[in-house]
């Protein structure tokens, strides 16, 4: 027998009666229905028939609601009060959702996770691609680079910048800046900071006015000018507590005193700068006056109003062609590129961010599909309730309004949950994409939240309204008679739900394949031979003083002292030093060309990684010597020279340098030959660089990371080619900290101004080099785990619902002799058919989509059969698990009960 009170209460909901009045009416009506039902039963009617008649009689053309409406409604002015009707709708919605608490919580959790992860991820992607830089008219800012004939791009040499500035017409202003690590000396000790060497218009080009004081003038950026500095906003806050009286004070960086003339407005330069100084001061220190020197300087320009990027690019290419003719040695074959600053800056995180955004988008889709399925299932269950309420005279509008309120409440709950999820995951994401932070400080974006909530809300509303839409096509009497079991309407819904499950499975398979491929890449990277033996190796960077007057030969002497003393220490197996330590994100490339062949065209000048190392370095790292020999004292020493690259080069032209090359360089440039004893020239032909003789070939080692390709590399002797900052590499059985303090002691005795910073093991450094990849795995793994869970849940819910709908059929089958195992098989088979369809679609989609991932993979093909098969098997296993419980339930149906309920 139905719960009359509940039925009447739902029927009255749209009237928004006073609670106590509603209770009275409900009681009276329920009493009436009960009386009528009992009368029918005592007249010999079957229970189902008695219920049906009672319900039909509760319906009347002069409907209950319209009848009560006139009598029971509150005062007219109450009804037009904004929100009063809505408030009651909301109250009823709450009550209705509370009655099916489990359902509501699942919907809110599923959508909340979808929304939350989407918002967090979208914010990062948005910062990278969609949101303009927080600078005035950012669309007019462009990054200029030189493009060598071999492709790619490189920093602009300072002399070329000066010519560009003179010749170009497209820009309102154009500026150059390079960032170098130097030592800030204060009374409390020293600190490594980043010093930006910039041209006078640098801050003006970015459109950042000084926060206090002044910017640079043209006169500051000339040889012989007074040394003046501008602090970055952040540095001003951290080191001077935002003191407005900072101008006029001095800073000592290395051995140079700078007078602070201003503080830059708050903006983040992607190269990083704590203190800015005029670039004229870096000319000799960093060899910037050489046209061949493409050191770490970037050129930024602001387009004139109305000038497009394409126009600027065309002009710059013409200027570059002109300069290539004028300076064929340094500029031969080089062109120029002009890209919008935003595009340039988001390069680093584009690939992973887009991938993750795709993943998170899929997750939101899965969540929406999942909730849609749940709501459709609930619609089927509520079909009878809706039918009764329609019979009792509820108008379609009232039904829609109430279901809409329920759906909106669900969407609201999901949005709040999503906000919490977003906050939690956002912080974590910033650690995964630290590059995103340099895009101008990002915080959760409300527009993004609105986007996700809209997607989820739309799902909730669309599918939440299904029962109301259905109700117009519903045969009321039939729905009441069948007690909400399958009818024609619900078969359409059933098909829709199955399609939703297939979609979810397909998307989950795509995500699992993505995650699987990344996991395999990570494993492959871990198994990659780095070319050295990292165990028991400690790396300790040493920073000699950067004084212009410092003697470069002192650096080499200091390294010799440190390495000799360490070598004599018990427990030290091997020790060496190098300026380009692997896995430290430092690279130095140098052009070279064989001098036993015709000089190649500028476009064809080869280039390789260049390092300056001691002989002991190879033994300490465990890099094998394959041919020839390593450096010996006879290979020469640098004489006493100040820190001026042009003078160093002038000296090196007078000697024959020795070099050790790696296997890749040997086989690429001396194929089929013995390179030992062969010579090449260092630098581009225009530089007329020193002659270099190859004395040995060592094994290849990875410089940038386990998952990065091996490149050709040549090593000069640290005794001859000056080392500006070195890393001491020690193979030892002693504790890293012991080695660190030992090195500190030796350095202090010899060169008190030199700094010893952190002490790390090579294993830690290697591990860190894979952090990005590991984070990607973690992230995508997490997404795919959630996706699989949701898909499993969707499958389970669908199967459970189907089984519930077919209880009678199962009972009948068993009454006719089917075994429990047959019934179980029937249900599991149905689950497998759904999952099979989903897996097939997912595999196809993955084959198409894997191209997106291809560039992020290492040591595994984008169409790796093992991964695909693994993901498919996993999904099938999950399907079996998800269908088994409903199947088991179906097989426990008591045939007699099932038949009786029919």
């Amino acid at each position, binding site marked *: 027998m139905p719960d009359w009170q509940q039925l009447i209460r739902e029927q009255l909901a749209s009237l928004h009666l006073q609670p106590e009045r509603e209770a009275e009416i409900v009681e009276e009506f329920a009493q009436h229905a009960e009386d009528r039902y009992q009368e029918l039963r005592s007249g010999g009617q079957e229970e189902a028939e008695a219920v049906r008649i009672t319900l039909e009689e509760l319906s009347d053309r002069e409907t209950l609601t319209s*009848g009560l409406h006139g009598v029971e409604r509150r005062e007219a002015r109450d009804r037009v009060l904004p929100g009063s009707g809505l408030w009651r709708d909301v109250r009823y919605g709450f009550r209705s959702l509370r009655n099916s608490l489990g359902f509501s919580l699942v919907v809110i959790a599923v959508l909340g996770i979808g929304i939350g992860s989407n918002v967090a991820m979208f914010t990062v992607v948005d910062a990278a691609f969609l949101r303009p830089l927080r600078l005035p008219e950012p669309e007019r800012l462009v990054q200029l680079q030189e493009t060598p004939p071999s492709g790619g791009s490189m920093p602009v040499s300072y002399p070329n910048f000066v010519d560009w500035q003179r010749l170009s017409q497209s820009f309102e202003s154009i500026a150059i800046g390079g960032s170098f690590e130097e030592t800030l000396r204060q009374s409390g000790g020293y600190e490594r900071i980043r010093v930006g060497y910039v041209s006078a218009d640098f801050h003006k080009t970015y459109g950042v006015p000084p926060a206090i004081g002044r910017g640079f003038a043209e006169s500051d950026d000339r040889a012989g000018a007074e040394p003046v500095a501008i602090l970055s906003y952040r540095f001003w806050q951290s080191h001077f507590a935002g003191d407005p009286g900072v101008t006029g004070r001095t800073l000592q960086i290395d051995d140079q005193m700078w007078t602070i003339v201003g503080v830059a407005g708050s903006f983040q330069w992607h190269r990083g700068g704590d203190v800015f100084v005029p670039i004229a001061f870096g000319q000799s220190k960093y060899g910037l006056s050489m046209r061949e020197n493409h050191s770490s300087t970037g050129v930024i320009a602001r387009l004139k109003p109305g000038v497009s990027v394409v126009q600027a690019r065309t002009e710059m290419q013409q200027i570059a062609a002109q300069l290539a003719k004028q300076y064929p040695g340094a500029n031969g074959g080089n062109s120029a590129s002009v890209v919008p600053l935003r595009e340039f800056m988001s390069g680093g995180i584009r690939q992973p961010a887009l991938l993750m955004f795709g993943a998170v988008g899929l997750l939101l889709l899965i969540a929406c599909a999942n909730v849609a399925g749940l709501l459709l299932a609930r619609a089927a269950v509520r079909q009878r309730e809706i039918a009764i309420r329609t019979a009792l005279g509820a108008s379609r509008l009232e039904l829609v309004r109430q279901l809409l309120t329920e759906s909106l409440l669900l969407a609201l709950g999901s949005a709040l949950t999503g906000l919490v999820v977003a906050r939690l995951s956002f912080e974590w994401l910033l650690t995964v994409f630290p590059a995103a932070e340099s895009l101008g400080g990002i915080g959760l974006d409300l527009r993004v939240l609105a986007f996700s909530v809209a997607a989820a809300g739309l799902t909730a509303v669309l599918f939440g309204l299904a029962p109301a839409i259905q109700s117009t096509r519903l045969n009321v009497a039939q729905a009441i008679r069948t007690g909400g079991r399958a009818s024609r309407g619900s078969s359409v819904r059933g098909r829709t739900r199955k399609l939703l499950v297939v979609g979810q499975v397909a998307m989950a398979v795509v995500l699992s394949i993505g995650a699987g491929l990344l996991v395999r890449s990570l494993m492959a990277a871990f198994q990659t031979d780095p070319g050295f033996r990292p165990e028991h190796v400690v790396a300790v960077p040493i920073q000699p003083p950067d004084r212009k007057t410092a003697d470069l030969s002192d650096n080499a002497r200091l390294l010799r002292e440190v390495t000799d003393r360490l070598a004599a220490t018990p427990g030290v197996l091997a020790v060496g030093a190098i300026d380009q330590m692997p896995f430290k994100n430092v690279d130095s490339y140098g052009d070279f060309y064989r001098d036993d062949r015709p000089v190649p065209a500028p476009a064809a000048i080869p280039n390789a990684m260049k390092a300056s190392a001691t002989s002991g370095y190879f033994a300490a790292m465990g890099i094998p010597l394959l041919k020839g020999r390593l450096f010996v004292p006879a290979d020469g020493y640098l004489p006493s020279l100040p820190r001026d690259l042009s003078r160093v080069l002038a000296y090196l032209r007078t000697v024959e340098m020795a070099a050790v090359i790696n296997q890749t360089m040997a086989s690429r440039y001396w194929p089929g030959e013995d390179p030992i004893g062969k010579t090449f020239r260092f630098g581009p032909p225009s530089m007329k660089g020193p002659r270099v003789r190859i004395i040995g070939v060592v094994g290849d080692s990875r410089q940038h990371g386990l998952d990065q390709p091996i490149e050709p590399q040549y090593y000069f002797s640290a005794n001859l080619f000056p080392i500006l900052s070195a890393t001491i590499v020690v193979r030892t059985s002693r504790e890293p900290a012991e080695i660190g303090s030992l090195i500190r002691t030796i350095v202090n005795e010899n060169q008190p101004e030199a700094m010893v910073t952190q002490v790390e093991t090579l294993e830690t450094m290697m591990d860190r080099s894979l952090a990005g990849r590991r984070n990607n795995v973690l992230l995508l793994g997490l997404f795919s785990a959630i996706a699989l869970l949701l898909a499993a849940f969707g499958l389970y819910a669908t199967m459970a619902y189907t089984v519930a709908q077919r209880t009678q059929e199962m009972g009948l089958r068993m009454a006719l002799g089917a075994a429990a195992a047959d019934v179980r098989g029937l249900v599991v088979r149905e689950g497998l058919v759904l999952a099979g369809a989903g897996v097939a679609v997912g595999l196809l989609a993955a084959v198409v989509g894997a191209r997106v991932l291809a560039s992020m993979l290492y040591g595994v093909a984008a169409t790796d059969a093992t991964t695909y098969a693994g993901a498919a098997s996993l999904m099938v296993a999950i399907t079996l698990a998800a269908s088994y419980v409903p199947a088991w339930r179906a097989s426990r149906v008591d045939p007699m009960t099932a038949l009786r309920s029919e």
Partner: protein
Amino acid sequence: MATKSIDAEWKKGSAELLILSLLEGIPRHGYEISKLIEHRSEGGIRFHAASLYPLLYRLEKRGWIQGRWVEKSGQRRRRYYQLTATGVKVLAAQREGWQAFVAAIGRITGVENA
């Protein structure tokens, strides 16, 4: 024919009079009222809950009848309705009006006034 369904509009027009008449001198609950109407009209007039109760509430709101919950031993409480003083006057007036109306209709249509 008593069992013939009676035009809904006529039913609507006479509903108040029917209910007030049944409550004359004796309090009754809703279900009893609906059964009595059906029984005395020999099935010709029926009021289902959906239309009966709104009517009862309307009459109560006008102050013609008054409802109150009564609990009898061993039974669930029920709401009984009885005529108020105003209700008694309204019933008398409506009876008079109804008789005049039926007579007038009879004169026009030639239907005998039983």
